[in-house]
Each structure stands twice: as structure tokens, then as C-alpha cells.
């Protein structure tokens, strides 16, 4: 019973945070609510005896991705300041309708299939040692590929987001001292 209560609390928290993350106007609020939703999911993983995954989720999503999103929001703040037009796309109603249809499409079969209502077997957990052994034996190829992918993503992200030094410096930056000097000269004359 305590387990059920904990599940309901965490689930309500996660869903509420997810809804807030998708509907708030302030992008920073959205990002922080998303981080809270990710933390709620980590709690659910812990509740499902997947300790390692839960902590990894907390570390990657709250510690890295949420921070990344927040940084991006701050670096692209011009939008927020400039536009006061609607934040939802013109066809948002259709989108939400499709989402509701998707929900119905998934939830109905779940509710109708009795095989899914059995209780969980006795927990065996996922000890960290076993995860490590599996990663090094059976899943070593995916592991290597993820390593390559992460390195590629790191380099790619840096290259994409790097500010390209323009071949000719933009006039607004390089001409400022020159103009100031010429004005001074004029004033002196």
C-alpha cells in the first residue's frame, strides 16, 4: 500500500510538471519544470528497483540536459523580448487532438488487456556489478558505439555552435575606434 501511494504521488508530480513544462509561457520555467519531471521519472525508476538507471537519469537529465536547455534559453532570449505573439503554432488544436488520439490508442489496449494487471515478481534488482559485467561482455559493441556517438556529438555540437570568425571583420566592431579617432581629430581642428 505505501508503494501504491508513493507511485500515485510521484506520477501526479511528474505529469503535473510535464504539463507545466509544455504549457508555461516563460521558457526558463518550462526548462525547470522539465527538469522536475525528469527527476520524477528518476524517482519512478528507483521505485522500480532500477537504482543505477535512476541515478544515471538524475545525473544526465537534471545535471546535464536541463542545464544545457537553460543555457540555450538564455542564449536565445531575443525571441522572448521581441515577440509578444502567440507561442503556440497555428495548428496547435490539431496537434493536441492527435496527441489525445495517440493517448487513447495506447491506453485503451492497456486497459483492456488483463495480462498487464498482475503484480510484479520478487525483486532481483540490477546490481551495479552485473550491469558492469554485462556492459563489458554482451553489450560491449553498443557501448563502444555509444562512446563514438558521444564523441561525435561533442565535436559536432562544438562545431555547429562555434561562432565562425568572419573573414572580414564586421564594420560595427572594427570601425568604432577609428571613427572615434576621426571625430576627435575633427573636434580638435
Amino acid at each position, binding site marked *: 500500500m505505501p508503494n501504491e501511494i508513493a507511485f500515485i504521488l510521484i506520477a501526479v508530480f511528474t505529469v503535473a510538471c510535464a504539463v507545466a513544462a509544455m504549457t508555461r509561457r516563460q521558457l526558463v520555467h518550462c526548462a525547470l519544470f522539465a*527538469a522536475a519531471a525528469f527527476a520524477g521519472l528518476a524517482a519512478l525508476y528507483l521505485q522500480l528497483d532500477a537504482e543505477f538507471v535512476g541515478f544515471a537519469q538524475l*545525473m544526465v537529465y*537534471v*545535471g546535464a540536459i536541463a*542545464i544545457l536547455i537553460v*543555457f540555450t534559453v*538564455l542564449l536565445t532570449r531575443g525571441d522572448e523580448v521581441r515577440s509578444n505573439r502567440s507561442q503556440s503554432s497555428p495548428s496547435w488544436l490539431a496537434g493536441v487532438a492527435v496527441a489525445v488520439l495517440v493517448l487513447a490508442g495506447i491506453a485503451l489496449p492497456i486497459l483492456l488487456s488483463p495480462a498487464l494487471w498482475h503484480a510484479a515478481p520478487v525483486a532481483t534488482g540490477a546490481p551495479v556489478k552485473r550491469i558492469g559485467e554485462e556492459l563489458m561482455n554482451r553489450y560491449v559493441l553498443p557501448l563502444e558505439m555509444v562512446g563514438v556517438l558521444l564523441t561525435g556529438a561533442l565535436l559536432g555540437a562544438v562545431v555547429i555552435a562555434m561562432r565562425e570568425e568572419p573573414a572580414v571583420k564586421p564594420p560595427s566592431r572594427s570601425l568604432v575606434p577609428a571613427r572615434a579617432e576621426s571625430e576627435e581629430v575633427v573636434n580638435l581642428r
Partner: protein
Amino acid sequence: MKGLDQIFISTQHALAGLAPAPLQPLVSMVLIIACLMSVFGACFALTTILERKTLGRMQNRFGPNRVGPFGLLQPMADGIKMIIKEDIVPFSADHALHFLAPLVLTVPIWLAFSVLPFGRNMTAVELDAGILFFFAIGSASELAVFMAGWSSQNKYSLVGAMRAVAQMISYEVPLVLSSVPVLMAAGSLSLSDIVQAQSGCALGWLPHWNVFTPWGLAGFALFLIAAAAESNRCPFDLPEGESELIAGYLTEYSGFKYALFFLGEYLGLFAVTGLAVTLFLGGWQAPAAWLEWVPSWGWFAVKFSAIIFLAIWIRATLPRLRMDQLLNFAWKFLVPLALINLLVAVAWLKTGTWRFPAAAEVRWLLGASVLAIAYVCLGRHWNGPAPRPRQYSYAE
């Protein structure tokens, strides 16, 4: 001696035994939480005063010495001052986030203490992935700092928060990388197992602590540097560099919320210091067998205080870095050195089977020389070429 060693555990069991049976787990949990919070709360108060007094001594002056004997009641005076101060929230601030930020900073750090082994059998929660929990929990503080800086709607706060977050993210990489060799050596993510793996002596007199291996020594130094940056200590305290940013992300905080931030900062230092003791200094292990009459928590406290004193000493000595120097230092010096350290640790663990005479000394020398060469080469080049003479556009 056994009794003194386990005095806290037996007291806890005795007190929990007084409660009715169904409530016993709850009572012992509350006892542990109360004990942790009071011990580290007192530690916080004591550290603030001792830090100020030590800093004073190192700068040729007395520290605070007016309130109580030797000024030891100064933290009480500070606390009373903080509590009765007016709590000012800026008009345009995001009130909810402004309120939440100190809590989000402080609460996870309290949680981080739950996995540290403070003595034999003295871990609040035995987690299989304890160190992962520690780092995962620690990542919440970055978000808290950002919340504080953003919700204040103040450009100094925002710049301070961005600096702090950039610094914390950058230094988390060497922090984790320098602790990975320890996990490899212990073969476990559980902090109790890591302490257990460091028991015993090598060569009959040298304790089996990680800090006495070449990779452990380098890792310990890297870990301390990264830890100082993670907890915004000097010389990495430029998120709140008062000479350029007023107080960084703390600018718009006052009263008790400010005190909470202060508390969070010190608790972060304590937590990461406790982790350093556990990972590199053998946790609660005594340095030699004949010293085991001192209780295990006593050894933890001694090592812990030594590192805290080192942090204070460094704070009294070093000036603050510049932002670009700070990030260069992390990415161009600490991270490569931590990676090389990882390789050295792998070689060290693989050569553990060497059986010829003086194998241990040869391994030590080889590892230390590789690290020393890497240190010298990286140290020469981490900051790039010598700075050009500065060119002034408007001065002169």
C-alpha cells in the same frame, strides 16, 4: 575499544529499541537524520569561526575574538543577525523561484551525506551505487544556482549564475574522472566497499590507501582542485567575486535565505571533503594497526578536519582566477591529466601481478614518472603562449 568504536550504532539501536516494534525503522531513521544534521550543522558553525580565525592568523591579524571566549560564540551572533534581518525580495523577481532556489541548493546536499561512511558500520544508507548517487545529487545544485541567479532579475546575479554553472559543469568532469580510478581499484561503486578495499598495509608499514599510489596521489590533488571549484571555494570563487560582481548570484538575497546559501556552500564543501577522505585517504581506516584503539569515526574526523584546514589554508594564500583562466585550467590541464591518470591507474592495476623483487617500487617509479612528465608538459602549455603586451584603444 570495540564499544567506543560502535558507540553511536549501539546508542541508536538502544534508543530505537525503546519504540514500539512497527515504529522502530522510522525511529532509527529519524535518529540518524537528526544526528547527521546536528553534527554537520555544528560543524558548519564551528568551521565558519575557525576559518575566520585561521584566515586572520595567516594575514597577521586576530580573527573575530569579541563574542564569547576566544570569539567562539561568533557563529551564534552571526546566526541571530541573519535570522532577524529583513528578507528583501526584489519587486521584479520571480518570487517562487527566488524562494525555491536556496531550498533546492541545501536539501540535496543534506541527502549527499547519507551515503558517506563516517565510521565502521556508520553509513546512513548502504547504496549499491553510492558514489553515483553522490554525483547525481550534487548536480541539482547547479540548477539551484541558476534558479537563484535568474529569478533575481539582476544582471550581476545572472552573470554570476552563468559563471557558476559553467564552472561547476566544467569541474564536474575532472572531479568524476579523478575518482574513476578509485572505483576501478575497488571494483565497486559502493563507498563502504571502497573503504574496505583500502584496508591493510603494503610493505608492512604503508597503509593501503589510494593516496599512496602514484595515480591516487595525482587523483587526490585533481580531486581537491575540482572539489574546491565545485564548492565555489577560493581560488575559484569568482561566481561571487565581490570585486566585479557584487556577490554574484547571491546579490539579491538577504536574511535567512542568504544564510541558507552560505550553509549550502559549506555543506557542499563538507560533503565533497568527506568523499575525498573516503576515496583517497582510506575513509575511517587507521593509518597503522597499533593506532586502531582510536575509534574509526575519530580517524574520519581527523582526516576530514585536515582537508578542511587545507581548504582554508589555500583560501588564505591564493588570489582569485580570471574566468578564461579558470575554464582553460579545467579543460586544458585538469581533464587531460585526469585521463592520463586513468591510464596510469589501469597500468598499475594490470601490473599488480608482477612478482620480481622490488616490483612495488618499480611500479611506483614508473607511474610517478609518467604522471610527472605529463604534469610538466601540460603545465607548460595549458595557458598558451605568454600574453602579448596589452594594447589600449582609448587610454594614454
